[in-house]
């Protein structure tokens, strides 16, 4: 490679490294704000030493604990408990739930922290995992039976 090309190549690579370094620093500075949601443990125990205050708006993501979903007979009010590894956060919501909402499903809720472990949600989003398989295989492997939302018993 002749010297001029070499200097151009090093120039281009140097620019790339500088930009990558700058972006790395920006991202690591922002890293706590880059997460889309807090986990229930982070809501209760705090994240990086700051526990969310009551009345604060936040997003919480966790798994719906089976058997905790309660529905109001008269309205669209629904309540359920979220967890990740230990602490449990109760969520109250009024509105339509996404099709994927099921017990044991990953859920992200947006709302206000009403008590230390109670979120009044105004939006509920379902998160699904990266595994795709036909229903028969899922039943065999995971013991999960696919239930259409309208046939759900809870």
């Amino acid at each position: 490679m002749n010297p001029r090309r070499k200097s151009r190549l090093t120039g281009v690579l140097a620019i790339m490294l500088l930009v990558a370094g700058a972006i790395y620093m920006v991202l690591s500075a922002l890293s706590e704000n880059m997460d889309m949601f807090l986990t229930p443990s982070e809501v209760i125990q705090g994240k990086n030493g700051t526990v969310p205050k009551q009345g604060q708006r936040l997003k919480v993501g966790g798994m719906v604990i089976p058997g905790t979903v309660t529905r109001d007979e008269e309205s669209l009010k629904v309540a359920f408990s979220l967890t990740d590894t230990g602490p449990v956060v109760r969520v109250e919501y009024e509105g339509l739930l996404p099709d994927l909402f099921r017990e044991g499903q990953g859920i992200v809720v947006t709302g206000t922290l009403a008590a230390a472990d109670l979120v009044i949600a105004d939006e509920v989003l379902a998160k699904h995992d990266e595994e795709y398989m036909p229903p028969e295989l899922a039943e065999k492997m995971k013991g999960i039976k696919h239930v259409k939302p309208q046939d759900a018993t809870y």
Partner: protein
Amino acid sequence: MWKWLHPYAKTEQTYFLCQRLFPWFAFLAVIALLTGCVWGLAYAPADYQQGDSARIMYVHVPTAILSMSTYAAMAIAALIGLVWQIRTADMAVAAIAPVGAVVTLLALLTGAAWGKPMWGTWWVWDARLTSELILLFMYLGVWALYHAFDDKQTGGKAAGLMAIVGVVNLPIIHYSVEWWNTLHQGASITKFAKPSIAPEMLWPLLINLFGLAMAIGALALLSLQNEILRREIKRPWVQKLGEQA
């Protein structure tokens, strides 16, 4: 080792190479996309959780993966254009950018259409979706920068530099789902472990991935031919082509 590449620094050689390659790319693209779409949309089994809605992945996943691969291809062309100062490579950058932008837009739109029934929202500002949107802006920026200069030599240089700088975004898009909490799920097939997808669903997906890659190649070839004609309009060989037509 790279001697065989040298003739293609001449735009004339590249133009006729594109012309020869195009039918192959187009043929493979049509065959593979037809097979993959019919197999995926009609015959592959439905997903255990998402039912038939998951079938949109046969369109969404290829566009999303290839929006990044196309960017990598564009950045390699830009590097060659900047370091070896080969004009044909600059033209390739300008030719690939609009094709890549369309693929990225498709990935975003099909993703929104999938997100609405499954997640319950068209759009969230999570790291994966946001970084993919930035990729769209990078493509549009490279394209706009190239055409912003009357002197295409300068335009090529500026666009090339922007294309190379934007490469930083690619690992961010790929690892966004691991580095941060996102609503978007993790990778199913672009990882080193066994794919988290049943084989009878994986095959049509891979066929579509191949088909879309060929389609992007075919479109980029056409686009490069046009760009060469536009910039070399005064050359004798282009004039001769015009007389023949």
